[in-house]
C-alpha cells in the first residue's frame, strides 16, 4: 500500500488498498445521497414545468374570449409551482445531511437519501403531468361553462395530493437513523 503511493499509478484510493476503510463507509458513499438530492429537484422541476406550460397555453387560449376569468385560472399554475416546492424542500433537507464518508456518512444513510429523492421526484413528476393536463382542459372548459370551475378544482386537488404522498414518504425516509 505504501509502495503504491511512491511509484504506482495515480489512484486516489484504489480498491485494492482498502485495508483501513470502514466497510460501512467506503469512499464512494456520498454518490447515492447526492443522486437522491439531484433527482428530487430535477424530476419535480420537470413535473412543475410541464404543469405550468400546459396550463399556461390553456390560459393563453381562453383569455382571448374571457379575459375576466384569467385570475381564477392561475390556480393550476400555482399548484404546479407547489410541486416544485416539494422537490426543493426534500432536496435541501437531503443536501444538508450529506457529508464525506470519513465524517460519518454511512452507506445506509446514503441509500435512504437516494430513496427519498426518487420518491418525491418521480411522484412530483407524475403529479405535475396530471395537474398540467387537467388544468389545460379545465380552464378551457370553465371559459365555456362556468359551473365546471369547482369540478376542476376538486380534480386538481386530487392530482396535487399525489405529489404530497411522495413528500410524506421522503420525509419519513429522511428521518431514519441507523
Amino acid at each position, binding site marked *: 500500500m505504501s509502495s503504491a503511493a511512491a511509484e504506482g499509478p495515480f489512484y486516489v484510493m484504489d480498491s485494492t488498498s482498502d485495508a*483501513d476503510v470502514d466497510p460501512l463507509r467506503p469512499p*464512494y458513499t456520498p454518490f447515492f445521497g447526492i443522486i437522491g438530492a439531484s433527482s428530487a429537484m430535477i424530476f419535480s422541476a420537470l413535473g412543475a414545468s410541464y404543469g*405550468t406550460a400546459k396550463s399556461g*397555453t390553456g390560459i393563453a387560449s381562453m*383569455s382571448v374570449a374571457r*379575459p375576466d376569468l384569467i385570475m381564477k385560472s392561475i390556480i393550476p*399554475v400555482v399548484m404546479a409551482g407547489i410541486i416544485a416546492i416539494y422537490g426543493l424542500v426534500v432536496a435541501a433537507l437531503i443536501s444538508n445531511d450529506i457529508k*464525506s*464518508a470519513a465524517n460519518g456518512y454511512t452507506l445506509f444513510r446514503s441509500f435512504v437519501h437516494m430513496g427519498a429523492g426518487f420518491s418525491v421526484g418521480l411522484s412530483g413528476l407524475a403529479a405535475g403531468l396530471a395537474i398540467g393536463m387537467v388544468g389545460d382542459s379545465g380552464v378551457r372548459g370553465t371559459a365555456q361553462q362556468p359551473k365546471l370551475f369547482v369540478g376542476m378544482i376538486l380534480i386538481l386537488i386530487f392530482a396535487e395530493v399525489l405529489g404530497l404522498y411522495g413528500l410524506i414518504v421522503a420525509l419519513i425516509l429522511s428521518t431514519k437513523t441507523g
Partner: protein
Amino acid sequence: MASVLTPVYIVLTMALAAFLILSFYYTLTDQGYRYNIGWLLQDTSPYMWANLGIGLGISLSVVGAAWGIFTTGSSILGGGVKAPRIRTKNLVSIIFCEAVAIYGIIMAIVISNQETVFNPQKWSEAERYQLSSQNHHAGYSMFGAGLTVGFSNLFCGICVGIVGSGAALADAQNSSLFVKILIVEIFGSAIGLFGVIISILQVTHAKMGDK
C-alpha cells in the same frame, strides 16, 4: 401512431439487447463480479465527475434557454405580421429565457471555483482515507450540483418559452392580456431559481485538495 420501426425504437432495442446479452454472458461464465459499481465509482477520478458536472450545468442551461427563445421568438415574429405592436413588449419573455442561461453560467463559475488540484502521492497513510473520501465527496457534489442546475434550467427554459409563445399570440389579439399571462411566466421562471438554490447548497459542502 409511430411505427415500432422508427430509429429511436431501433436504437433503444439494440441497446437493451446488448445489455441483456452482456449480462447473461457474465452471469453464466462466472464473471458476475465484473458488474462492480463500487469499483466504478471509486476508481474513476473525482476530476471526471466534477468537470462533467460543470460541463453539463452550463450546456443544459443554455439548451433550455435556446429552446425557450426559439419557441417564443418564432411566435412573436409570426404574430407580429398582423400586429407589429407586440414586438417590443414581448422581448420580456425572451429576457426571461435568457436569465436561465445566466443562472447556468453563474453556477458553472461557482462550481469550478471549488475545484482544485490534489496529489494522492503526497498524502500520508494516516490521512489517506480521510482525504480520499473528502475528494470523492467533492467530485460527486460538483457532479450533482451541475446536473441539478442544468436539468432544472433546461425544463424551466422550455416552460417559459412555451408560455411566452402563448402570451405573444394572446397579446396580438388583445393587448391588455399580456401582463396577466406574464404572471404564469414568472411562476415558470421560479423553477430555474429553485435549481440554482439546490445547486449552491450541494456545492458549498464540497472541498477538494490536499488538506
